[in-house]
């Protein structure tokens, strides 16, 4: 048993509905049930938490909040849906403002049924979540240990959903820098991405470790210029040279290009630093939104 199962920190969010499950979840902390004896802390801060406990059905207002909290949880993380409403929408499922259970927005690992779910059931759900957490942690460690066996391959259209999910995770750090979710990379839909795959001049490269995509880059040519965009690496695997390798690989796929071009936001110092390290130089800026100015960088082929 690793330390993961001995110290599960929880963040609890009540999406909507009658608050019954909400009260029962808090009842777990009381002297009768005392989940702290299992090391559980109700943190209230997504960045400290391991387990995301959601009660209630998802409505239009809580949708964005759930996504936000889920993305802020550091890996590895587990989601536990508590109560009938969180499972399927419950008696509210046919309401005009309800989009269904929690799994209509984020992936759910453990389902705890009940209306309202009993504290014993909730504790049991959390204990089961610990097993999932350990499994995910092992997967992450094995991925991190086999990074040297990473494959850099052409991505197919069937990879689009996985790449899009990765893109949304990877761009969270950019959205935080600018305090703005309107980045095109975060707004892209699956249909748009799939259309990109059908364009003949567009090339996608993916980094695959143990069958899981942890990085990707895309590029297309305009005359002699190759435009490289969206160098994305899963946040957990950053700083290990995957991004650098991706840029090298995509440059190799355009043997006829005389010049390479990239763009990034003006405050993304890390990206700017990396590209300058590759030999790229800034040549123009262009305002995009009040918060973001694009910086274009270029490099001639030697």
């Amino acid at each position, binding site marked *: 048993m690793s330390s993961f199962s001995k110290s599960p920190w929880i963040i609890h969010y009540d999406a909507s509905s009658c608050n019954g499950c909400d009260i029962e979840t808090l009842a777990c902390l009381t002297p009768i049930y005392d989940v*702290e004896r299992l090391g559980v802390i109700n943190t*209230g801060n997504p960045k400290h938490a391991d387990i995301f406990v959601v009660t209630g059905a998802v409505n239009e207002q809580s949708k964005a909040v759930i996504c936000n909290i889920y993305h802020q949880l550091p890996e590895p993380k587990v989601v536990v849906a508590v109560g009938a409403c969180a499972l399927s929408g419950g008696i509210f499922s046919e309401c005009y403002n309800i989009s269904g259970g929690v799994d209509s927005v984020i992936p759910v690992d453990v389902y705890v049924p009940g209306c309202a779910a009993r504290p014993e059931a909730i504790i049991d759900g959390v204990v089961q979540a610990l097993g999932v957490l350990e499994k995910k942690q092992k997967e992450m460690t094995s991925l991190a240990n086999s990074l040297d066996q990473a494959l850099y391959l052409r991505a197919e259209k069937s990879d689009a959903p996985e790449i899009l999910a990765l893109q949304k995770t990877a761009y969270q750090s950019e959205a935080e820098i600018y305090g703005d979710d309107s980045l095109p990379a975060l707004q892209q839909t699956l249909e748009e991405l799939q259309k990109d795959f059908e364009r003949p001049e567009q090339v996608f490269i993916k980094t695959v470790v143990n069958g899981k995509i942890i990085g990707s880059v895309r590029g297309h040519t305009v005359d002699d210029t190759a435009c490289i965009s969206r160098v994305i690496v899963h946040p957990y695997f950053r700083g290990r040279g995957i991004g650098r390798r991706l840029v090298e690989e995509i440059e190799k796929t355009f043997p006829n290009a005389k010049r390479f071009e990239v763009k990034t936001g003006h405050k993304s110092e890390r990206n700017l630093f990396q590209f300058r390290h590759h030999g790229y130089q800034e040549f123009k800026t262009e305002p995009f939104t009040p918060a973001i100015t694009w910086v274009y960088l270029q490099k001639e082929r030697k």
Partner: protein
Amino acid sequence: MNPWIRLLIYLVAAPVVGGLLAGWDRRISARMQSRQGPPIFQPFYDVLKLVQKENVVVRRSQNYYIFFFLLLAIFTGGLFFGGADLLLVIFALTLAAIFFVLGAYKASSPYSFIGAERELIQMMAYEPMILLTAIGMYMVTKSFAVNEIASHPTLLVLMLPGIFLGFLYTLEIKFRKSPFDLSCSHHAHQELVRGITTEFSGRTLAMIEIAHWYESVFLLGWVYLFFGSLPVLGVAMSLLVFVFIILVDNVFARLKWQTALKSAWLVAAVLGFGNILVLSLLSSKPADPSGSGDAKPVATTRMSAPGGTTPAPGNAPETARRN
């Protein structure tokens, strides 16, 4: 004991003792709330887990600040247990806290901003009392060096009762316990999300935890100084003070920052400064009988004059001429 050996023991033992204290704290708190509470090794499990978690970072530099916070927290205790100058220890302590605040400021989130501001207010609240504690210890032992204070034959708490109580008050602030858990609280409270530590996760949060362990061992070491001449009593009292702090934590609600600041300064002024005033009056008395020499400073002569001692005849014109 050789100060280097003491330092080495501190470096190795402090995180273990500090972690156990933190576990004990949670256990005692749980018992006070009629709960079972987590295992005593729980803080170690937490830190081991945090090390394996992903480190979500807003700005990379925030982690360097926290690294220096940990380093200086260790350094503070190292100076203290190595027997260095008490004033230097206080400066290192302040610098450590400043790095923690800078880290939180760097993360640019409203919650960690408010937490950092409150931490600064807390520092303003406890600094005067901590300085007065060092000055009080100097007045009794005539030395700022920790090893000389610790080996001084008098029981310091008898000479510094006011300062001891005032120091207890600052310990509540320094341990971030209720009623002074303004910047962040360790228990299941969720105000300000998580205050000053909101934006830290993974390894960085683990570093903060470990720094707290070192800090709490150092602070309890300072409590020991008050009982330095009776080592067994000193250790017992340090632990008793720790239990007392936990008790206060569980009994009291949180104060507003205005009240915290005002009350801390009031305590420093009344208990701390009052104690020092009494000490200086006490220590000036034995000088009276010999106050007749020409070499004595004027102030001593003047102060002792209302005390009933008649100045020597040859001394009066001397005083007049100097004025």
